[in-house]
């Protein structure tokens, strides 16, 4: 038996005999609270629960451990598969079968006593499950799976289990709960009623004066926002690539800003500029007697905010596409006698059209998933994401309704992603070849160029105004009304004073800031790690079900944050996995929402790293884990930076999913800011937002510094040149 098997078997034993089997109330394992009453019915390990707390059913998941220990001594690792599989199954079955309120199913209640109740799994249960998973993997490896490589089998088993638990299980729970009535009974007719209700699909706005269904609102907004953002992005891309525009570097900078700006902050700035008491509204009112109005609340405001937020994304997609059009193609068209306009219309435009469609779909999906801007600016214009939120937190508190709305939203975004893969996947004309293309791009037709300049000027002006508002708004008493310079907002949020026991952080924002930083700092490396390991498994290993596995890892990208939030609440509020209200659920939520970026970045890099490097390491006696650590990871540094930065920034700026998952104890900065904005404390909200942006910039710089550069010393490029040049 290998050392690793002994280790996992021992950990399983510790999980059964020592660790608290159930989830602990309060601060968890690190605080000593639980030790005071250890062991009792809430803190005792499995052995105690069976012997002294009357939870004899725990024998089911515990006994297979004895089986494992037995076969380990007699028959070797191949026999692990059966026992570990049995243990895992029984652990899940008993966990789902008996919950807080007693046995989960009526027929089971008949068999057990009525006080058969249990909370969610804790450290003991989780560790035993992990031990079964790892021992089972070693069993499969011993049977020759994945070339007998235990690390690979374990990694696949772990990632698949985690994705199943934290991506598929919540979504399935949500689907199931949509089909239940308020008593939890199965009621498909209720589901059909809710799904087809006029509140979602009504078309009253066309003929009569009532508002349309929320689904149509969402689609309309998404189409207009997607098209508008694409047009803006295209104008910028053409301007950058095809004209002698002087300020290209500035444009690049403007495109980075939205990435580090929490999405709703733009909405916030728009209120401060164009709201009834906004700065620009006030100017217009004072100078031109244009009456103050609330026009910005509703479709116009949300649309404006989304255009400003998504145009840079479209720009980043389209600049690659526009650069990819080989000038020689247009030169060929011109030498064949076509005018400039004809060349653009007949050659350039058809070549970039798939890229344009791609940018549109991206904007479409982003708009659908956007939660912060509709929440802050939407007014009476309801979209699915906000409607889902209010169904959960509002007066009605109808989780079934929330689930139905979330399903509609999920269907839309998945549909768009499906269209993108299916319809555009093979239609992208890459005209970038290895050959040098020395032609000069032809200048844009005059009309197109003028339009580009006009659009760009307006957009730049607006963006500058928005960011000036964000950065300076926190330093004045009330933007639009009272421009007196003040530190008050920052003091409210971030004041600190020397008390008798040292530094006292008295500002109201500190708690949420520390939680945010902590959660982001913990989730970023985890995201990068699981993303890169997954990328490694997908590119370097062959195993059954690989395509499904890949689909599963990418799926979480297509799920809007609000849907994730609702599904997590539904799935993780009850045993066996009870996580709501903890900081852990925030970390988990970020890890699995942001993992696809790590996977993509890792896959792109790995495709450029010669596979024989890994193989050389293996034949030299390194195990897969060592190979990853010493050969693959050092070469993956650019992908690692991308994954770290991205997941950190996303964790700092996300609002849609976390707003469902935050608790009084673990509040996040974004949720706090949205709360302040809703309460009308715009000064504090904007001050906090600008502080967040500055912190993120500092963190990105720090990550770059910590991870450092790859060392390759490519000086002599010869016959043996190894293709590892990255796409980092």
């Amino acid at each position, binding site marked *: 038996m290998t050392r690793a098997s002994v280790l996992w078997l021992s950990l399983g034993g510790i999980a059964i005999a020592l660790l608290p089997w159930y989830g602990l109330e309060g601060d968890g394992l690190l605080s000593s609270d639980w030790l005071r009453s250890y062991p009792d019915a809430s803190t005792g390990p499995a052995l105690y629960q069976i012997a002294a707390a009357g939870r004899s059913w725990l024998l089911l998941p515990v006994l297979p451990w004895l089986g494992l220990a037995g076969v380990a001594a007699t028959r070797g690792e191949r026999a692990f598969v059966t026992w570990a599989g049995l243990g895992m199954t029984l652990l899940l079955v008993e966990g789902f079968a008996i919950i807080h309120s007693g046995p989960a199913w009526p027929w089971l209640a008949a068999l057990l006593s009525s006080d058969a109740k249990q909370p969610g799994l804790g450290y003991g249960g989780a560790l035993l499950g992990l031990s079964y998973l790892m021992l089972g993997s070693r069993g499969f490896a011993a049977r020759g799976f994945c070339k007998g490589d235990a690390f690979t089998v374990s990694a696949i088993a772990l990632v698949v289990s985690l994705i199943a638990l934290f991506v598929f299980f919540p979504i399935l729970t949500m689907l199931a709960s949509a089909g239940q009535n308020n008593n939890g009974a199965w009621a498909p007719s209720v589901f059909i009623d809710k799904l087809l209700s006029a509140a979602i699909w009504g078309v009253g706005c066309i003929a009569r004066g009532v508002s349309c269904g929320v689904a149509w609102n969402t689609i309309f907004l998404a189409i207009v926002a997607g098209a508008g953002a694409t047009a803006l992005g295209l104008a910028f891309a053409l301007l950058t690539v095809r004209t002698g525009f002087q300020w290209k570097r500035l444009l690049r900078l403007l495109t980075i800003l939205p990435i580090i700006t929490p999405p709703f902050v733009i909405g916030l700035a728009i209120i401060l500029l164009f709201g009834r008491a906004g700065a620009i509204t006030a100017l217009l009112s004072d100078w031109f007697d244009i009456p103050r109005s609330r026009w910005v609340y509703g479709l116009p405001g949300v649309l404006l905010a989304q255009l400003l937020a998504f145009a840079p994304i479209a720009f980043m997609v389209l600049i690659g596409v526009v650069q990819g059009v080989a000038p020689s193609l247009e030169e060929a068209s011109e030498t064949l006698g076509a005018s400039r306009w004809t060349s653009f219309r007949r050659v350039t435009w058809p070549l970039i059209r798939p890229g344009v469609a791609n940018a549109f779909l991206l904007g479409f999906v982003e708009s659908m998933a956007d939660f912060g801007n509709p929440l802050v600016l939407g007014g009476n214009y309801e979209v699915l994401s906000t409607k889902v939120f209010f169904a959960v937190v509002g007066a009605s508190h109808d989780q079934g309704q929330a689930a139905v709305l979330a399903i509609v939203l999920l269907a839309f975004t998945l549909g768009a992603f499906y269209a993108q893969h299916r319809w555009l996947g093979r239609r992208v004309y890459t005209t970038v070849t290895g050959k040098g293309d020395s032609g000069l791009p032809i200048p844009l037709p005059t009309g197109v160029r003028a339009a580009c300049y006009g659009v760009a000027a307006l957009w730049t002006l607006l963006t500058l105004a928005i960011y000036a508002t964000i950065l300076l708004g926190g330093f004045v008493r009330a933007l639009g009304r009272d421009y007196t310079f003040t530190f008050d907002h920052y003091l409210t949020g971030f004041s600190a004073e020397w008390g008798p026991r040292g530094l006292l952080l008295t500002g109201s924002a500190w708690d949420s800031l520390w939680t945010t930083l902590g959660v982001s700092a913990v989730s970023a490396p985890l995201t990068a790690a699981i993303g890169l390991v997954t990328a490694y498994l997908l590119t370097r290993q062959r195993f059954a079900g690989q395509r499904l596995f890949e689909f599963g890892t990418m799926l979480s990208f297509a799920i809007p944050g609000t849907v994730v939030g609702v599904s997590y609440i539904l799935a993780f509020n009850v045993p066996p996995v009870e996580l709501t209200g903890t900081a852990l659920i925030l970390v988990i939520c970020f890890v699995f929402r942001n993992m696809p970026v790590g996977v993509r970045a890792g896959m792109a890099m790995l495709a450029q790293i010669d596979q024989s490097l890994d193989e*050389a390491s293996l034949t030299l006696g390194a195990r897969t884990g060592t190979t990853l650590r010493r050969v693959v990871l050092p070469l993956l540094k650019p992908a690692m930076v991308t994954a770290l930065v991205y997941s950190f920034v996303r964790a700092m700026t996300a609002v849609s999913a976390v707003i469902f998952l935050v608790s009084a104890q673990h509040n996040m900065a974004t949720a706090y800011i949205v709360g302040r904005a809703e309460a009308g404390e715009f000064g504090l909200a904007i001050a906090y937002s600008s502080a967040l942006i500055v912190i993120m910039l500092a963190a990105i710089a720090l990550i770059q510094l910590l991870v450092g550069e790859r060392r390759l010393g490519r000086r002599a490029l010869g016959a*043996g040149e190894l293709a590892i040049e990255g796409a980092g």
Partner: protein
Amino acid sequence: MATTHRGAASVELRHIVKRYGPVTAVNDVSFTIAAGTLVTLLGPSGCGKTTTLRLIAGLETATSGQLLIGGNDVTTLSSADRDVSMVFQSYALFPHMTVLENAAYGPSVRGASKREAQALADEKLALVGLEKLGERLPAELSGGQQQRVAVARALVLEPRVLLFDEPLSNLDAKLRRRVREDIRDLQQRLGLTVVYVTHDQQEALAVSDRVIVMDHAVVAQSGTPRELYEEPASLFVADFIGDANLIDVMVRPIDGGLAEVSVGPMTLRLRRRGIDAGPAKIAVRPESLLFRTEGGLPGTIAKVAYLGTHMEYTVATALGDIFVIERGAPTLREVRAKVALAFAERGVTLVRG
């Protein structure tokens, strides 16, 4: 995992099959490689030779069959547990490590201390003459030097079997011969078991104790270079090794394991090699055809190439175009000249058609 020397080991494949979905890359292959010998897997691309090598390395797992190294079944063992090293076609030097770090990688991942690992690495780098370049990065070396680093790195663990995957394919023609000789020299000096994959028959004949010719996922023939060249078991082997002319003949068995073979107007007496009466083929090496002024097989010179050490002719005859090599000829034959061809004593073999 200790890094002690355990001596060269034999390699045995028993009915190894490797399938990728519907494609069978290796189909029921069995052979034994004696300890301390250099055996080449030779064949055209796609014949399964590299897959066979990777199976021995543990980089692929056989679909069925058994693989033994030094008499132990290693069929399901992972690569890291097999005590086998490989020199890759692309060398696969770790670009972020120096030459010394590359060479010391094996012992270091197996738990040797840094000093031990570097001492072992230095020793093997000296063996390939690169002791002075330890601090360089692979990208700063020439192709030939990179190749030697790859060999040193593979040798550091004193593996029981050393595998070479087309090690010369990234070198220029002049360097190839020298590196080839270096590899053979090293193998004989250290008494290593080496499995060597190549598609170049000349390279295979030059370095090997034995050659295993593969074709369409199966072993076509295995034997010493000389056996393969002079006694090809099939048309494929005859054709693949040494560009033999394949000529249709009629066979009439006679006594003493011989047969009378009619080739056009001529009759030869050849070893029968178990071939029945009736139509068959003979494989004739290009240098086993002799020009005659009269008698023999009449023909016309169709193409001529002057190659310094020898001449190459294509002769059009009633039996088809025949490729002939002539060495040390006093004169150059002209295109369209009438000639007659006869067969030499050696290099003419009856082959199953």
